[in-house]
């Protein structure tokens, strides 16, 4: 029976491939090229960091291994959490589960099929990120060919093991708490753990690793470097094993490698064995709808009161009320909100840690900071603004068949997301300017630029989201990672690049004026910059909006 399940996957993949349009193929190739470029960039970055650490006298030989064990430990925990979240969706809420459970397949076979899917989904991106790291490490320590082969080969059981822990946890949770509420709690806790790991990684200040004086006693530091990061965890089996291989201790390597491989077989074997009892109970419970508790009837929403007082148009108010309710009740949004706060905290912390002493340099960094803050706002838009039309999902027929113009629908999404986007952008830039002590001109310029950019990104998000609607997706990540999401991000990055180019001229004269008292700007060029800026924003706002409206109006469901 297993080949039948495998066959359906292979057939689906083959059919998607052969039915691909030329433009889809082009977009996918672009995605792959962009992904490879990012991996290459990471390789060079990893190489620089590892090479620097390796070159430090006395402790240099230990540092790359120490960093590796920390990195792989972090990766293991991330794969586990990712496995937990993926398993909750794949094992209990996939579209085809009802069909599979109604077929004469054993529970164990269905579980195994879905487990493979969850393991792959949760681990492949993190595994891909570690490939350039392994290549960079190998190059720095001067490793031979077999080092790469064994390391990459052992990476597979390593990530599978991480995913298995997440799957095991989901199986246990759904066995003991078989309700749909468990999924929401897991989603929230899992995301919080990810956020915690992300913040911890930044707040422990890994840059201190290169400064022995930062630790109180040097001997303590050396002791710390020599000690395994976590001897009984798989991360040490992998890194410790590869370290042993590199230094010719093949016995230790074989022990670590076999421990890793055998653990994978043992853990997946146990999971499949116990799934016979645990999986069906969890799946059954997951289908039960979430009850709201006591009958509360209808509570008059705030938006309705605003409609009565004439502060809001009826359609806008009604759609806002609906979207607010959906937002408040979808736990996935909460975790994303928490992630944004974490990103902002880490961002501002990093700005504060920047070792800058000159006032002009600080002002210059404040100006360049527009691009980084803009990127954060664009990323938030990718998560919230861009998918807002697609998230109407299969219920879109309600709006499409109602006496509401699609322009009103787009306008409501714009109103909903502009304020948060504007707040995030301006708070990031204003706070950064305060931390950096930027001068008045740069502070005003950067604040104005990010405010306009935040609004432009909202137009682009709603507009391009309507150009590339995906009403039939299983989860929001499919919307974000679609061709439309890619185009939205590319458009935002292009916008930021052009803004920096346009503004670089007045900024250049601002700095020149501080050094040379007789430096005076060319007002014709200044005017041209202002004109180019207005034109850029007009295009960024009007074009996606018009395209989105036109596409959505011609969209058939």
């Amino acid at each position, binding site marked *: 029976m297993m080949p039948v399940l495998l066959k359906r996957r292979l057939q689906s993949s083959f059919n998607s491939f052969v039915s691909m349009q030329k433009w889809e193929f082009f977009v996918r190739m672009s995605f792959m090229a962009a992904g490879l470029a990012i991996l290459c960039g990471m390789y060079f970055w990893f190489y620089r960091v590892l090479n620097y650490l390796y070159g430090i006298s006395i402790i240099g030989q230990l540092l790359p291994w120490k960093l590796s064990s920390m990195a792989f430990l972090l990766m293991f925990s991330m794969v586990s959490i990712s496995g937990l979240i993926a398993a909750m969706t794949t094992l209990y809420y996939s579209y085809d589960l009802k069909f599979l459970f109604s077929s004469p397949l054993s529970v164990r076979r269905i579980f195994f099929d879905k487990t493979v899917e969850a393991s792959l989904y949760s681990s492949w991106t993190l595994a891909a990120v570690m490939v350039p790291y392994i290549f960079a490490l190998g190059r720095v320590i001067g490793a031979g060919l077999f080092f790469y082969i064994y390391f990459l080969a052992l990476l597979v059981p390593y990530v599978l093991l991480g995913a298995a822990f997440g799957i095991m946890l989901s199986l246990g949770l759904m066995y003991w708490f078989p309700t749909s509420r468990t999924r929401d709690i897991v989603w929230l806790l899992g995301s919080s753990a990810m956020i915690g790991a992300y913040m911890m990684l930044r707040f422990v200040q890994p840059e201190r690793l290169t400064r022995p004086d930062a630790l109180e006693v040097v001997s303590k530091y050396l002791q710390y470097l020599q000690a395994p990061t976590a001897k009984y965890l798989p991360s040490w089996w992998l890194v410790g094993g590869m370290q042993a291989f590199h230094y010719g201790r093949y016995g230790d390597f074989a022990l670590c490698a076999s421990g890793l491989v055998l653990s994978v077989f043992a853990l997946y074997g146990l999971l499949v064995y116990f799934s016979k009892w645990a999986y069906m109970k969890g799946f059954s419970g997951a289908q039960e*709808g979430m009850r709201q508790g006591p009958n509360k009837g*209808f509570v008059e929403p705030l938006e309705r009161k605003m409609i009565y007082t004439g502060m809001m148009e009826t359609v806008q108010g009604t759609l806002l009320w609906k979207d607010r*309710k*959906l937002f408040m009740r979808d736990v996935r949004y909460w975790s994303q909100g928490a992630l944004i706060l974490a990103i902002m905290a880490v961002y501002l912390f990093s700005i504060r840690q920047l070792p800058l002493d000159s006032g002009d340099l600080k002002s210059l960094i404040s100006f360049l900071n527009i691009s980084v803050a803009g990127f954060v706002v664009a990323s938030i838009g990718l998560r919230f603004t861009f998918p807002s039309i697609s998230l109407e*999902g299969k219920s879109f027929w*309600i709006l499409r*068949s109602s006496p509401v113009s699609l322009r009103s629908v787009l306008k409501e999404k714009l109103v909903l997301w502009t304020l948060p986007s504007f707040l995030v952008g301006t708070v990031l830039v204003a706070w950064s300017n305060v931390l950096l002590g930027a001068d008045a001109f740069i502070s005003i310029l950067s604040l104005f630029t990010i405010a306009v950019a935040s609004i432009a990104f909202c137009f682009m998000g709603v507009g391009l989201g309507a150009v590339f609607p995906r009403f039939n997706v299983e989860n929001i990540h499919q919307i974000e990672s679609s061709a439309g999401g890619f185009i939205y991000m590319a458009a935002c990055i292009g916008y930021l690049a052009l803004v920096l180019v346009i503004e670089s001229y007045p900024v250049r004269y601002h700095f020149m004026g501080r050094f040379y008292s007789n430096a005076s700007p060319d007002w014709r060029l200044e005017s041209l910059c202002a004109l180019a800026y207005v034109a850029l924003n007009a295009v960024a706002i009007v074009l996606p909006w018009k395209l989105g409206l036109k596409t959505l109006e011609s969209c058939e469901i």
Partner: protein
Amino acid sequence: MIEISGLTKRFGDLTAVDNLNLRVEKGEVLGFLGPNGAGKTTTVKIMSGLMYPTAGSVKLCGIDIVQNPVEAKRITALVPDEPFVYPKLSGVEFLHFTGDLYGVPADEQERRIPELLEMFDLVPWQSELLESYSHGMRQKLVIATMLLRKPKVVLLDEPMVGLDPKSARMVKTIIRDLAAAGATVFMCTHILEIAEKLCDRIGIMYGGKMIELGTMATLRAKTSQGLDAGDGRRISLEDVFLDLTSDRQFSSL
């Protein structure tokens, strides 16, 4: 009143609806039948503004759905075959939401919504999120939203699917009452017994074309068997339907 003129819908090489001409009068219930893939749902989607026609036009009470969609939709109610609703809204919230969208005054909503919930046995579920509703419950809720806004044109695509016998009987009464009150009802269904009992006229689609249209008596007269099924009973809509569509299926083989 519904006026369909030269309606055609093509998906690439496939012609789903081929030059459909039809007029449904005020207060009339029209049953729209046909085998799977005949073009029934496509026709309903075009009539409700979910799809654009390749050619032809649809006028609902004189308003063209393509030229003036918002006004046409204001007087129309659609009950689709799959009642997808917002899973994170409660039943009572969904009713208020659609009421607001269609401009039903708040005081009327306050009065009518409890009645409708009572009517469809949804009172114990009114505060539950729609993700916990069964297919039939969601179907009842969508039908309740239709009654809330008193439409002039009612488009029903398999409205009985998923309904319990009590609700199904109630929906039949509702359809007749709506027609009696002057609404034009256009109903796609595969349940021939319901179509036979409920509809004033019946149209049969096959391969995107309307192959027959008329009252039960007219359709009976047009079949190869005449008015008698041959086994002593009077010919039913099922006999008519199979007679009109099966032969064509076999002849095409």
